[in-house]
């Protein structure tokens, strides 16, 4: 009797408990997806998804780690066009003093951001075969832009983290890993030659895919020509440099700017010769995404004193012709600074009323003037007459009342080099020009300049090649550090 009663109790217990367990919702209850993000499996389905993915790549390019600031400012403060003022805030002081190590923040952020451009464009490229919406031209344009941006990021990385193509032995020198997939696999460094081959192949494919220059803040066929011209110029492949530079110059949509149109490039982010620039919204600027803040003092000054970190070199200023429009476009005299009255660079001091902070400016990545100077340099090896013509064309656009004296031999080359320095001051070019030409530099102390104002760097210095970030050394056993840098 007792046992039976107990059995009954147990039965009821088990039955009821079972009911509760049966009502247990299964996996559906636990399968949650975020309302504010997209699964990586569904990120590339429609044409709009691919367009959004491409926008994501552009947004990465304009990040502070890359063209938003670091790709330019790191290298401009490293050479002899800028001097840090006494008591400056120490921003970019590491690069200015050449004390960078594998732990340096900018060494890490440039490497990471450029690889993000690469992996993000690769995702799009790898999903592209599944895209079946839009016209063929639309689809090809998307693929072409992604490929060109991926090529550009590889090219920038190899310029920074490897030996110069011309200065070394590209077939054996370590370049950077070529990446075409987003994954966590360890990747070894390809040779410099392999990276250049990849960049050229991809850029040419991009050129053949793209049909239009959509807008100045997107890349198109002209930007592809501009990149290829830059790459061949870096390699010293003069015939190809001439070919692609000529293609840029031949595009009548991007004539050289003159007069106020040239000043507008810097004051209003507009100007005929801009082939590709960033499109940073006014709310997206910050101290890290603000190319000019260290040159003009970022915040609106409380007083009339500009809290600048860097002043232009007097040596550079003295190289300009008195009638050069670039003196007006790039420099302002008699500015009160914490280190007295100085000439400061206002290349990135905008008039755009929406820019609430000084130094906010779109970064110009390709301009037509570069094609002229690339072609002039290339022709100087084969046809000095055409080289003189290109140099003359550019100077005529910059210097009012310019009369050209025909140059030859090394004098011609030196004038072209000088013109590059004047034209591309604070545009991240001079560091790589010196590296490419295997030259050192020496700073001359000037009024207001602080420590490292007399720094001299030999052409053979190992620091022309940046270290691989320590994070990468720790995480990737296949990675090899550049010579001269100690990795723990």
């Amino acid at each position, binding site marked *: 009797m007792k046992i039976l009663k*107990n059995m009954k*109790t*147990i039965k*009821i*217990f088990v039955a*009821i*408990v079972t009911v*509760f*367990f049966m009502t*247990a919702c299964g996996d559906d*209850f*636990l*399968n*949650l997806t*975020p*309302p*504010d*993000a*997209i*699964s*990586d*499996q569904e*990120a590339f389905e429609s044409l709009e998804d691919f367009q*959004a*993915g491409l*926008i*994501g790549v*552009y*947004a*990465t390019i304009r990040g502070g780690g890359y063209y938003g600031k670091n790709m330019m400012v790191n290298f401009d403060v490293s050479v002899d066009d800028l001097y840090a003022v006494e008591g400056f805030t120490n921003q970019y002081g590491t690069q200015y003093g050449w004390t960078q190590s594998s732990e340096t923040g900018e060494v*890490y952020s440039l*490497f*990471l951001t450029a*690889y993000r451009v*690469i*992996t*993000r464009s690769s*995702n799009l490229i790898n999903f592209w075969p599944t895209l079946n919406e839009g016209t063929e031209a639309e689809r090809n344009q998307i693929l072409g832009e992604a490929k060109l941006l991926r090529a550009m990021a590889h090219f920038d990385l190899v310029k920074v983290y490897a030996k110069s193509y011309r200065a070394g032995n590209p077939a054996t020198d370590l370049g950077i*890993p070529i*990446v075409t997939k*987003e*994954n*966590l*696999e*360890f990747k070894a460094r390809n040779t410099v030659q392999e990276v250049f081959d990849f960049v050229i192949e991809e850029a040419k494919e991009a050129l053949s895919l793209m049909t239009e220059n959509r*807008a100045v*803040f997107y890349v198109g066929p002209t930007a592809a020509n501009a990149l290829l011209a830059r790459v061949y110029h870096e390699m010293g492949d003069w015939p190809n440099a001439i070919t692609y530079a000529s293609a840029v110059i031949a595009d009548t949509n991007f004539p050289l700017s003159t007069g106020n149109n040239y000043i507008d490039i810097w004051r209003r982010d507009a100007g005929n010769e801009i082939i590709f620039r960033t*499109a940073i*919204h006014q*709310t*997206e600027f910050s101290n890290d995404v603000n190319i000019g803040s260290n040159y003009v003092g970022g915040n*609106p000054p*409380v007083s009339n004193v500009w809290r600048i970190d860097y002043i232009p070199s007097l040596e550079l200023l003295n190289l300009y012709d008195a009638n050069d429009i670039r003196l007006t476009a790039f420099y302002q005299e008699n500015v009160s600074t914490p280190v007295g009255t100085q000439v400061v660079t206002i290349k990135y001091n905008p008039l755009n009323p929406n820019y*609430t902070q000084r130094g906010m400016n779109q970064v110009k990545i390709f301009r037509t003037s570069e094609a002229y100077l690339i072609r002039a340099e290339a022709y100087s090896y084969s046809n000095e007459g055409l080289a003189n013509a290109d140099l003359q064309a550019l100077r005529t656009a910059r210097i009012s009342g310019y009369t050209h004296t025909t140059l030859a031999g090394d004098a011609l080359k030196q004038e072209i080099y000088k013109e590059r320095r004047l034209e591309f001051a604070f545009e991240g070019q001079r560091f790589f020009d010196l590296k490419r030409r295997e030259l050192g530099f020496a700073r001359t102390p000037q009024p207001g300049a602080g420590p490292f104002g007399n720094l001299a760097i030999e052409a053979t210095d190992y620091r022309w090649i940046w270290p691989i970030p320590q*994070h*990468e050394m*720790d*995480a*990737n056993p296949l*990675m090899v550090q550049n010579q001269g840098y100690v990795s723990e």
Partner: protein
Amino acid sequence: MKRIFIIAGILLFAFCNLTAFGQTIRISGTVTDAADGSGIPGASVVVKGTTVGVITNIDGRYELNAAPTATLVFSFVGYTTQEILVDGKNIINVSLASAMIGLEEVIVMAYGTQRRDAITGSVGIVSAEKLEQIPIASFDQILQGQTAGLSSVSTGGRPGSHSVIRIRGTGSISAGNTPLYVIDGVALTEHTGSIYDNPLSGINPNDIENISVLKDASAAALFGSRAANGVIIVTTKRGKAADRSNLTYRGMYGTSTQARDNFNMMTTEQKLQFERDNKIYTRPDEVWDSLATINTNWRDVMFRDAVTQSHEISSSGGTGKTNYFVSGAYFNQEGILYRSDYERISGRLNLDHYITEKIRFGASTNLSYEKSNYAVAEGGYGNNVYNPIFAAYLMNPYEQPTDEDGEWITQFATYFGNPRRELELNQDFNNTLKILGNVYAEWEPIKNLQFRSNYGTDFFDYTYDDYLHPESVWGTSSNGSLTRGLRRANTTTFTTTGRYNYVYATKHVTNLMLGFETTEHYSESFGGEGIGFASDKVRVPSAASTPNAFFGSKTEFTVLSYLSQFTYSYDNKYYMDASFRRDGSSRFGKEVRYANFWSVGLSWNLKKESFLADIDLINEMKLRGSIGTTGNYSIGNYLHLGLYSTSVSYNQVPGSVPIRPANPNLTWEESDIWNVGLEFRVLDRINATVEYYNRYTSSMLLGMPVTLTSGFVTETRNIAEMSNKGIEATLEFDIVRTDKFVWDFNGNFTYNKNRVEALYGEIEELPWGSTILQVGLPLGTLYYNQYAGVNPANGKPLWYDQYGNVTPTHRGDDKVPLEGKSYLAPYFGGFSSNMTYAGFQLNAFFTYSLDRWMLNNTAYFLSNQSNFGAYNQNAAVLDHWKEPGDNVHYPLYGTVPPSLFDTRFIEDASYLRLRNITLSYNLPSKVLQTIKLRNIRLYVQGQNLWTWSDYTGWDPEFPGASELNAYPAVKTYTFGIDIGL
């Protein structure tokens, strides 16, 4: 034949009585609570020496037959048992006194209650009297020092702020370390740690009946995936059957000031001399002279004597069939910093009702509405002179906040603006509505079988309002700005359990519980910012001339759990329990989504053994041990999924970028815990407990660096390991216990040894903020350059490099782990002593924390040798290096590069603090009878009145490694009255 049924849910003891032989008489009566005269339902009344007995009904009444010469034993858990000779009486009324903590006390445990003697795990109890009428809004702050193994570190003196609670050390590096809070069966959402959404502040501490702190696997494993950091179970007051309902008013009023102010700032005379000596400012002579006439103490400008007041009315009672507890309370506390305050209105209704004898339902509901003002940029937000706390020290004494007309000065010659004026003009305000409650139903279809379903919710809704006045220095550039946001979050927990008790051959008592639980959480937010206000009289977003930004988010998680527990005891001598829980969580990948957690506990009541039974010296003795696993799922949502974010844009066109790659192996952190404890009571006046525990966290989450060529930086993997081992001791000592005079002491002590056991791969050390994670060293070990003093030759600072050589340069590479100096204290606890004499009661409660080290970051700025000389400085700096040969602590001004920290500012932050001292007086019952009141209690108390510490900063009690601009701790004097009707 006899059987004992234990209905574990509500712990009523039912006796199937057999007819006793011989002549009997009918006896009846009522068993009441000596404290309030209410009937005690479920008390047992047994004829001594027999198994004959009954339990009292809902009103505490009983009836039974017994011999006229018999003795009746009246007992109820938590009360002292009484024996009364029948002596022919037909009516015997008994009032039972509440017992000291003894082995028969009922303890609230995971998913139910347990008799204290049956518990095999480690549980700390904090009773209501420790929590009531303390002038602190959030009860977690009050837990400090109350029970062994629990460390509670206040986040400062801001009203309404929370405390950082750790149970048995810090068990995780990357995941959460906060214990799980369960309030009346409802598990609260994890606290994000933000100062704005402390989930505990909505609860009136006076409503709490008791708190159980579940520390080991046996106690906590039933909470499975959420139990690794321990569980704090809060039970609120409920009504009991009583002849007459009671009504209580409690009021309190007090003032607070800064608890400790160790910095001796320069006077005007000293500061001006310092500025002249170091050529910090150049001024015309007449300006130097006029400044010398001003001497402002900026602490007085920024800080105030802050008022706290609290009023509460509560009532409880019941018929037995329906019992209730209701309370309404108002708590208002000003912060010592101007413009910071906290206000709470809360109400609670707890209700229990029997529909039939077999079906019961009830509810616990707590509503609270909180309003807080924060001083703009206070605390860790601003490391500059606008931070009002910092400004109280950094402002030069020769500046004054108001002009001759008493108007606030806007800007000073040397500073950007007047911090007090900024405080007055700007506003950072929020209000929160919290609903915390549950409804339950219990059904006992047949004896010994009980089902319970509980539906609980933890809801909050808050809005915040950050306003910058157009005329304030901060608001000028935007012409005023207003950010207003809303956030709403809700967690619902639905639990169903079934229990079955079975007793075999009297001595074998078994209990089986099976249960099922679902937890669902969602949280969403929305807000916007507008700038440009025509007038400061309009303060709504729509009045802004330009909408500047808007934002919103939503997130969810779910947990699905199956739980079971089996307990067995033999003859109240040997106890065993085992629990098993299977949890699935949306936070983890499909393949690793479920995990199993288990525990086994044993305990042995030695006093029941013959070898101790006759030793009168020892009243009770119990040995227990447990082993098991618990988990930690306190990581963000969706972290296992490969995701793209669409929050990026370019040229104002939205785009998508990957956030992280899929990480399908991401799973729980698991802790293996074992625990042994010995509890005893000797001389009938000393209770003591000693425990040892070992908690080992494996598969601990750590962000592991991945190749940057992936576009990603780290991937969180279950890879690291860490251990916490410790000893806990608790002592309760009745020093004197006479009718008139009672003096007792109780205290607890914890030693916790933390050790990082493994990081990842061959990596043995990992810099971690201002600390280092290094295998073999405890978590929180500080990591700084070693300071080598001032070079007497030139007044410049010197450091040691990593090889021990003296160097004039401070390099990041020369940081060393400061072994033995962790900011997580290994020793901590509390003790109190209580004296009662003729209605007077004096209680003093101390807490302590030892061998704790911290960077005094505030001192760094107040004795700055690089560029803070423009601001006021610690007067000690006057003794800086002046000429060759000076052998002093402070280097020459201007010789230390900015922002270089070193061991100079590492200090011992051990402390002993008089946390609370209370003197109270209860009016004698004669007086009460004439004025027809149940009780009147008057008291004065002081909070944080005295602190011993070598720490030279504001307060040694700070949860982090580096203290900078923490809201200073406060000391509070209060006066209060309780009136019972």
